[in-house]
């Protein structure tokens, strides 16, 4: 009797914990009526773009065979995948094995951002409190968010599958690749379900899940570069699981089981952690701080540094680790290039110095990474204003140019510092692994030379922000352009003007080429002029109100 009552009670509380899920799910769909199709169609369109572009570039099988050595080598492994089918590649191998990696990453990003948006971000804003005060179970919000994310991933998988089979690629491989996209997305939904429990901040939750995504990419890159078709490192990476299905080659489905199990386990961990904390709180309890400000905290510049310090430290650590890891891989990479065919070596700058070509690619990678930091930092400056925190500072005796200039100065300085860190770490790794001390200096110079290019990106962000703050995200277009031109420019047939528009194409490709002093000087001058224009525009407009 009593056990029946207990089990009935348990059953009731079991469903009670998720009551309201349906309503919340419909509400989330309503809120995301633009965002949801944008992500789903956007990822499909990205894949569609790859298909169309590659069909044009590689019109004949000979065209593909010509680039095969490049894709088969460490370069393909670094930026693509484990290289299944690259011995005699067809178009679908390139699509699923190389370019498709970015669709996998995109699905992961979509999932983690969606989960954070509907759980921790809601709690942080206080809106979740209103919702939870209604007839809503304690697990309803997380459940609805996970259901929504799962549905988005299923939709992406369906559309990608239809796209690939519609293009006439083999059915089994196409549907397997599409399922891999969805499975990777599911895994990162689970990861985010856990990270949102840890911190009170949506940004920290997204950052932690994003770090797992970035780590997954790096892990599989290291694994794929070290051994053919990857090694244990690749198998530790959630992105690796998706890639190890080897669509169109082995067509094996079982790695996706790992993805699904990982998704279930991380989501279960999220649920378990969520009942151990209060609504709105993180698992890490807040501590008391100093009652007085440090004596150096007395200028807008000091405030800007204080607010950005944590981020700069985090990026420094991440770049030091990534730089050291990629740098240390220079030796094995050069060995792998031994005996590579002529056309590949031409792409990397000729037979004379393959090492220099490899370092140049790494330098560009870190240059672009630091540009991403600069844009994210510029967005936090905008948040200072939209959240109303810039107002009391400007109401004190601080001019607009001093406020914005301080923030820009800190970001510009931090960007330079981060490039030094990345250059040093990569340089040390490369010099040690190859046994060539000069590589340290070369790598440092090559990386730091991109500082003016990063500053141009930052200055453009400042101009957009100063003029029309909501246009700030448009600056991502410059970063994406630079990335596409820098990495895919030689392979895709891009117009010259695209290269000219990317600030990263004007500093020379050191150590392949000498650093262009004229380019550095011009970019610095352009950055300064654009930043001044941005500050001037900011000085003339209204300070945004909250809400």
């Amino acid at each position, binding site marked *: 009797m009593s056990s029946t009552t207990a089990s009935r009670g348990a059953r009731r509380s079991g469903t009670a914990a998720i009551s309201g899920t349906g309503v919340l799910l419909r509400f989330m769909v309503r809120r995301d009526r633009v965002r949801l199709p944008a992500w789903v169609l956007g990822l499909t369109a990205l894949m569609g773009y790859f298909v169309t572009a590659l069909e044009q570039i590689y019109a004949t099988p000979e065209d593909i065979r010509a680039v095969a050595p490049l894709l088969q080598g460490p370069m393909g492994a670094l930026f693509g995948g484990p290289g299944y089918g690259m011995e005699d590649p067809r178009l679908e191998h390139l699509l699923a094995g190389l370019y498709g990696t970015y669709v996998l990453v995109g699905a992961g990003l979509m999932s983690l951002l969606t989960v954070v948006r509907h759980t921790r971000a809601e709690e942080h804003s206080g809106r979740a409190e209103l919702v939870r005060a209604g007839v809503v179970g304690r697990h309803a919000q997380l459940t609805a968010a996970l259901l929504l994310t799962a549905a988005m991933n299923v939709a992406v998988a369906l559309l990608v599958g239809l796209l690939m089979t519609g293009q006439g690629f083999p059915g089994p491989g196409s549907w397997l690749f599409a399922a891999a996209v969805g499975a990777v997305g599911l895994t990162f939904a689970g990861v985010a379900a856990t990270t949102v429990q840890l911190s*009170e*901040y949506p940004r920290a939750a997204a950052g932690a899940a994003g770090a797992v995504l970035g780590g997954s990419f790096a892990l599989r890159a290291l694994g794929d570069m070290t051994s053919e078709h990857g090694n244990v490192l690749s198998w530790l990476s959630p992105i690796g699981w998706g890639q190890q299905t080897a669509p169109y080659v082995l067509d094996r489905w079982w790695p996706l089981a790992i993805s699904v199990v990982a998704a279930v386990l991380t989501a279960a961990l999220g649920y378990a952690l969520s009942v151990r904390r209060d609504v709105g709180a993180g698992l890490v309890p*807040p*501590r*008391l*701080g*100093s*009652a*007085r*400000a*440090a004596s150096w*905290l*007395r*200028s*807008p510049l000091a*405030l800007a540094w*204080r*607010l950005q310090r*944590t981020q700069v430290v985090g990026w420094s650590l991440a770049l030091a680790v990534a730089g050291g890891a990629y740098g240390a891989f220079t030796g094995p990479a050069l060995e792998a290039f031994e005996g590579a065919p002529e056309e590949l070596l031409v792409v990397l700058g000729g037979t004379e110095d393959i090492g220099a070509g490899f370092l140049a690619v790494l330098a560009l990678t870190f240059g672009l990474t630091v540009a991403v930091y600069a844009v994210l930092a510029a967005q936090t400056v905008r948040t200072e204003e939209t*959240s*109303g*925190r810039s*107002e*009391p*500072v*400007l*109401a*004190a*005796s*601080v*001019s607009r140019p*001093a406020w914005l200039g301080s923030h820009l100065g800190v970001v510009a300085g931090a960007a330079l510092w981060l490039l030094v860190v990345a250059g040093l770490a990569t340089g040390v790794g490369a010099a040690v692994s190859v046994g060539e001390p000069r590589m340290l200096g070369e790598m440092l110079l090559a990386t730091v030379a991109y500082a003016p290019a990063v500053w141009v990106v930052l200055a453009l962000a400042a101009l957009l922000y100063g003029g029309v703050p909501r246009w700030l995200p448009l600056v991502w277009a410059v970063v994406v352009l630079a990335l596409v031109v820098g990495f895919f420019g030689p392979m895709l047939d891009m117009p010259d003007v695209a290269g000219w528009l990317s600030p990263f194409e004007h500093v020379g490709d050191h150590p392949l080429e000498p650093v262009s002093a004229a380019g550095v000087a011009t970019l610095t001058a352009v950055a300064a002029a654009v930043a001044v224009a941005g500050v001037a525009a900011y000085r*003339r*407009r*209204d*300070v945004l*109100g*909250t809400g």
Partner: protein
Amino acid sequence: MTAPVRDLDAPVVEVRDLRKSYGDVVALDGLDLEIGRGEVHGFLGPNGAGKSTTIRILLGLLRHDGGTARVLGGDPWTDAVALHRRLAYVPGDVELWPNLTGGEAMDLLARLRGGTDAARRDELCERFDLDPRKKGRTYSKGNRQKVALVAALASDVELLLLDEPTAGLDPLMEAVFQECIREARAAGRTVLLSSHVLAQVEALADRISIIRDGRIVESGSLQELRHLTRTTVTVLTGRPTDGLAALPGIHDVRTEGGQVTFEVDGAHVAGLMRELAGLEVQAITAHPPTLEQLLLRHYGDGLPAAAEASVR
């Protein structure tokens, strides 16, 4: 850039025909405002009337479209940095840096203004019962407001711009706040106090401006405003009061349990008293209009709109 001059007789805030629009929405529609030195000026109005817009223009955070605004003898837009050394501001919705403690935020804001009085700061923290060691993200709305209040009140400035500064405070803290404003006035400071809390303005303000739809509809001392308005009178008389309703300046006569209640215009009180003298008055109460009544009279026809605004 002209240096702001310190003229002790000139108004501290002088606003003429101020206009500001956000796109098609007119926020300020020819607003006039004058605040003399050493005065506590109450700034009353419903949500969306333009109080915050006015204050943010006075701070140089917003640029006005038309009219003139002078603060402490300077132009709030071009002389912002110099003027802000001489004023302090408390926003209605205080946001703090999540990873800075309240104490750090207070010190920083005081230093950015040019000076800090640590003893005064500590005393105010004590009086407002505020722990300055907590991180910004852990404060409640009321405590965030206290941080901004302590930072403003601890600074040695001529002008305090307070935009609904006590919306999140409990009555005990409200009393502390009123005490602090009286001290500020005693120290010769000028205060612009925008508020919904009518009792607070009644208790503190020397002069009051009522804003509605972006313009000032009434301005003056509380006494002057009352003079313009009606006194509520309740009488119990031995003789019939039928003649009262016919007197000039008498409104809204109603009878309840033998007592007659009505309102009388300030200008017609004398005539009323002559009439009442012959009616064998047994009991009489008369009270001046409360600010609620003042506001109701000005916003009575706009109540649905105000209610709508507060729902949003």
